[in-house]
């Protein structure tokens, strides 16, 4: 079965600074990879997803993520964060074969300071 690890529980970043959220997965082949965001009091919203092809994926709200097979990673980045980016971010993995469902990481809470 696949698994996903988000090593950072909480990250604090100054507004305007760059951001990188880490995600590592365990799966025998190339999985489907996702980043979701949960703003306070809201459900989850998809930021971006990777299936195949170009390893740098662009998403909504100015986010991007890079798939690195050699490191089993799918880190999320943003060059300049805004106060509205304060939220919880979830990485998720789904197998590219078989019938298993999405497996979510434990989440990283992002705090933005002025």
């Amino acid at each position, binding site marked *: 079965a696949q698994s996903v690890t988000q090593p950072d*529980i909480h990250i604090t970043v100054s507004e305007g600074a760059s951001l990188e959220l880490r995600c590592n997965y365990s799966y025998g082949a190339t999985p*489907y990879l*996702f980043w*979701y965001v949960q703003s306070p*009091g*809201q*459900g*989850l*919203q*998809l930021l971006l*997803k990777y*299936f195949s092809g170009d390893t740098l994926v662009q998403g909504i709200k100015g986010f991007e993520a890079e798939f690195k097979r050699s490191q089993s990673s799918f880190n999320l980045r943003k060059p300049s964060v805004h106060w509205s980016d304060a939220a919880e971010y*979830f990485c998720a993995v*789904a*197998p*590219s074969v*078989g*019938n*298993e*469902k*999405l497996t*979510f*990481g*434990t*989440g990283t809470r992002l705090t933005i300071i002025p």
Partner: protein
Amino acid sequence: DVKVTQSSRYLVKRTGEKVFLECVQDMDHENMFWYRQDPGLGLRLIYFSYDVKMKEKGDIPEGYSVSREKKERFSLILESASTNQTSMYLCASSLDSGAQETQYFGPGTRLLVL
């Protein structure tokens, strides 16, 4: 836009009560899911449904059941609520059963069992 609604944002119940959580989606999606979200544990899949009257157990089905009598509605039932079922419950839907499909989430129901 896909809209997933959940019947309550906050719910307080007593131990032993039967609890119904309702979820409705308006985009004719085939798949629907129930997750629970707990701090430090991320999202865990309770049950999902591929079609009307079809259901499959997720990772943590114990103490829960589900009902899907109509395509747009997926109910989560706690037959006899217990304090360890205090949690945030998230409903989601997706267009079909492919693992690469985007899941669309409702705002969540925060359940407190006393």
